[in-house]
């Protein structure tokens, strides 16, 4: 009778995903230490994963696709969209991939996918997160078998390109059965390899790093269907694609990440990793309107928190002063509206910001671990 039983290793990320879901529902609001970066989902490095290194050369369109040998990967689009009256509708679409560490499952290919979608207006927010396993057929980042065009999807949330390249493309997704988002995206500038040719260090001791590139020059137009109306929108988008063995360790407290479109055409990406032993360290990229990138390190960036706000009982820094003295940039970054928390299984703050000071602009801010 024993032959009908087979024994396999439990995918570690399945349990960690479930674990995180339990942490989320079990922990009280004051118990924030257990929900560090993305609610704890990045706390543990998978040592069976390939690791980012300086020898890896990012190539397009190949590297738009999935890198299943790496433990963690995401395709991350944020956009500041506006209607004809100038009302802003910040939008987020993210597809996460995690390697489950299992290659011989009868149900999946061992890859786990999670997608976050969000749309805000000045009065409302819609957020939804969905999950799927790779290999089943409802989640993948690949070239379409028939057209050979790039596509990334989880269920009916679908990024479809018209070529093997990432852009031009359309993005369609539905939130809470109430909002249909249909966007067309065009690249207006080159891809930017962050860090050193895409090798992006995440901790001061350089123990953790990722392969990381951005497309900050995306022109977007499309429509948003609400229950009672359809709104034509257009605006600017910022896309990040990042893959690694792990971005943090157990002592990483979280990060603060900014992607800013300055009015003079420059793009600015900054992130601060908060670590209980190594301290807080800033990294970033300053991108010219033509696509030339300057790699920024801690010595170039000065960031301070101007004020905190309480969102759903959690203290989050929503007003910042950021300076790049060497480049005459002294800006104040504040949230477009206070409550832009993503209340999912892995909670974090992701929202549109307004830039003032030496430069005007718009953009997005992501705050994790609060």
């Amino acid at each position, binding site marked *: *009778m*024993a*032959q*009908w*039983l*087979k*024994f*396999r290793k*439990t*995918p570690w990320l*399945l*349990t*960690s995903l*479930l*674990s995180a*879901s*339990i942490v*989320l*529902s*079990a922990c009280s609001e004051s118990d924030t230490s257990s929900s560090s970066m993305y609610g704890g989902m990045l706390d543990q490095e998978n040592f069976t994963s390939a690791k980012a290194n300086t020898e890896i050369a990012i190539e397009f369109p190949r590297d738009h696709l999935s890198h299943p040998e790496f433990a963690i990967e995401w395709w991350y689009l944020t956009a500041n969209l506006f209607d004809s009256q100038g009302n802003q509708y910040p939008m987020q679409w993210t597809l996460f991939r995690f390697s489950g560490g299992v290659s011989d*499952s*009868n*149900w*999946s290919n061992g890859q*786990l996918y999670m997608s976050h979608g969000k749309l805000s207006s000045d009065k409302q927010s819609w*957020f*939804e*997160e*969905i*999950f*799927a*396993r790779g290999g*089943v*057929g*409802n989640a993948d980042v690949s070239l379409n078998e028939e057209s050979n065009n790039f596509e990334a*999807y989880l*269920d*009916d949330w*679908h990024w479809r390109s018209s070529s093997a390249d990432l852009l031009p493309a359309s993005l369609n997704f*539905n939130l*809470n*059965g109430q909002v249909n988002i249909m966007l067309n995206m065009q690249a207006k500038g080159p891809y930017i390899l962050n860090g050193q040719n895409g090798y992006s260090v995440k901790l001061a001791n350089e123990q953790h790093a990722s392969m990381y590139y951005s497309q900050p020059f995306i022109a977007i137009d499309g429509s948003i269907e609400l229950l009672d109306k359809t709104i034509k929108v257009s605006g600017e988008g910022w896309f990040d694609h990042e893959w690694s063995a792990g971005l943090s360790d157990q002592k990483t407290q979280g990060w603060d990440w900014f992607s800013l479109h300055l009015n003079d055409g420059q793009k600015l990406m900054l992130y601060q990793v908060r670590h209980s032993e190594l301290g807080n360290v800033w990294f970033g990229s300053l991108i010219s309107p033509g696509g030339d990138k300057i790699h920024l390190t801690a010595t170039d960036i000065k960031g301070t928190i101007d004020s905190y706000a309480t969102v759903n009982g959690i203290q989050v820094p929503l007003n910042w002063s950021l300076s790049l003295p060497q480049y005459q940039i002294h800006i104040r970054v504040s949230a477009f509206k206070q409550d832009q928390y993503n*209340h*999912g*299984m892995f909670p974090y703050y992701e929202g549109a910001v307004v830039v003032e000071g030496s430069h005007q602009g718009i953009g997005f801010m992501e705050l994790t671990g609060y």
Partner: protein
Amino acid sequence: MTKSILSVLWVIVKSYNLQKYRFFLVLMAMIIGCAGFSSVLVINETAMRSYNQPNFPLVEDVRYAIYPKEGASITQADYADLRKSGNRNIIAVSTLEIESKNNKLDFVGVDYYALMSLDLSQQGADSTEKEVVLFTSSLNSSEVDATENKFIVDPAYAKVLRTQKLLTSDNFLQLNSQFPIGPVSIAKATGLGQQIVCDIETLFNQFTTQEISYLVVVGKYNDKNPVTVQLPAHLRLVKLTSTEDTEQLTASFHLNLFAMGLLMFVVCMFVVLNALNLLIIKRLPTFKILRQLGIPIVAIFSASIIEMLFLAIVCSAMGVTLGIEAAKLLSPAVNQTLESLYNVSLGFESFSWPSLYSRVLLASILGLSLAAVIPLRSIDRHLASIKLTPQVVSNENRWLAVSAILLLVSLILYFCYTNILSSFVIIGLLITSGCFMVLFILPKLLVLTRPFIPSNAPSLSWSFADAKRVSNKSSIALCAFFIAVTANVGMNLMVNSFRVATDTWITQRLDADAYIYTQDADKVSTLIKLNFPEISIFVRQAEKVSYQGNDLQIRSYPSQLKHRQALLLEDTLDTSWDKFSNGYGIFVNQQFALSKQLKLGQKLEISRQDNTQLAVQVVGIYYDYGNPNAQALVSEWLIKNPLGGRQVMALYNQGAHPLEWTELKKQLGLNMPDAQMMETQTLLKASMQTFDNTFVVTQSLNIITLLVAAFSLASSLIVIDFDNKPQRALLRAMGVPASKVLLLTLFQYTLLCLFICAIAIPFGILLSWLLINLINVQAFYWSYPLVIELETIVQLVFSSLTVVLLAVLLPAARAILIPPIEDIKWLNG
């Protein structure tokens, strides 16, 4: 006064030592009464809760599922395509039955990732966070670290698995493999029954199964808010059986349980009354002495009431505990029913003990108060009398008068009030009237039949004569037995009549050889006409209309002779079919007729969806059991807007030889995969199977009621054993062997029970008639002819007698098996 009450209480407590046997019987009677009542309540509530419970583990609102058609299967690609098309409320499920250590284990693998993706805000929840809570709450409440658990099991089921040695102490499943699998999270979760739930990937990897069994569709869907998913040709959407299809049957089932609960309560009250009466009779001399010592009668009354309250508190607690255990013992039968009806199994541990206890205690106090009226009155009466030996007064004519008055009141109620409450009161009055009738008729029957005993059988003749004395002493217990038999006869005849009516109706109504359900009747017709010319087809069409603001479905019905014969009519006009064929007449179902009080010949104005009116005359009322909705039949040409969706096609084999339906089924599967064909015999079998499963619990409850009544008789026998000693001593002294005395005792009880059965049968038939024609009509707007099958009645009488004889055998044997000298000693004493 307090001192006097305490003194009486002290005497009562001291008397327990002298009357410990009788006191023990009172306790037992009350405990068993409470246990019986509790078990009925538990079963009743569990059943009620089950059809309000979600029928799928971990998620609520699963009313539809997608299954593969015959010969097909659901692939991962099908599942992925459906989800990619926007159906994020569709979840893959794989089920597996494993036999281990002679037990069947049901594993349910659910796609946890799809479950986590559920947006419950669309399903009516307040926020998306609820989905997280819903899913993870089951894991959170786990006794062990939930993160490492592969399987989830309900705590009640975990206990069962442990008993079967299938679940180890460290929460691993020990199946037929040498390696345990797990760990298992033992947790309460929505819809979790007797299954072992896990992630679908766990199921696929742990076992050799590689199949998606079905896809559940999550959402508050119903006929008004239908599922709109576009399915590939080889898949079909199925409405799960736990919903409206069984609603009416379920309501009938629940009413049945409720009535059984009430009857059980009444029987239990009689048991307590019997026990109390026997106890107080024994105490009367003591109370008389107390009175002579100057203790006021009020103190005796108060002390007796305090004693009863105390007994109620203690016995209710013990009874509830036993009742829950009894319900668990019955759980296989109950679960079988619930599983077949709702695909759910419940653990009885989920029942709230305090809530049950408070209800049973209240019922016990109420029952004790009512039951104590007669014994307390006897205290009053006997304490006032001078003679120590109470005078025997014949009450027989008074019993007849009370019985007649109660019957009269129930008749008046029957003609004056027509609501469900009055119907139950009528039934209560009828049964009580029957009890008084028993008290009146039983002695008369014994006297009337005595001449038939042969004169050359003196011991038998003595036994017969002594039966009257026994019946007087056991009158209350005999009344309890009467109620139990009446209830049994009434319930069984009702269920049997319902079964016969349903069987007749469904067999007559399904006059075709097979039926096809399809969305494209034209295509199916073409296919059949081309390949099976010997089959004639009739398409049943339907239209949604309204009458007096209420929804009504009108369906087309053919008027050829064979179809006329197939329609089982309750009542009809002479020219009904002519008017029907001409479009002037309409047949309405019984539910519609009774709810709207429609009469034959009445003109109806039916409103159609295009705002036109259909003027027709009611020409007949047809039986339509199990249909929860108002429905009417019209000629085919009157149907204006056939319902979208599935249509029913009736197929008739016109050929000379029996047709091979499997060939047609095969061709339909190839060419018209959406069409579902069912042969009439299969349909009939499935329908009657559902019916039988529904009433399994009723049978169990009937047996419990009978057992309680039998206990009552057995306890009477034990208590009156003291009074039997003179007679028995005499018989033993005359050399009658113990075995013969035992047989004579059993003969007495057989005789008494046979007479009770003879009285109970007409009352049972009347009860059944009332249940069918009053309760059913009030509750469901339908009735059916009462079918009195002699075989059923004989079976009931035989089983009742068997139960009683088995119950009294032990105390009777115990009394007989004592050495003859013990009885003979009594003569000297």
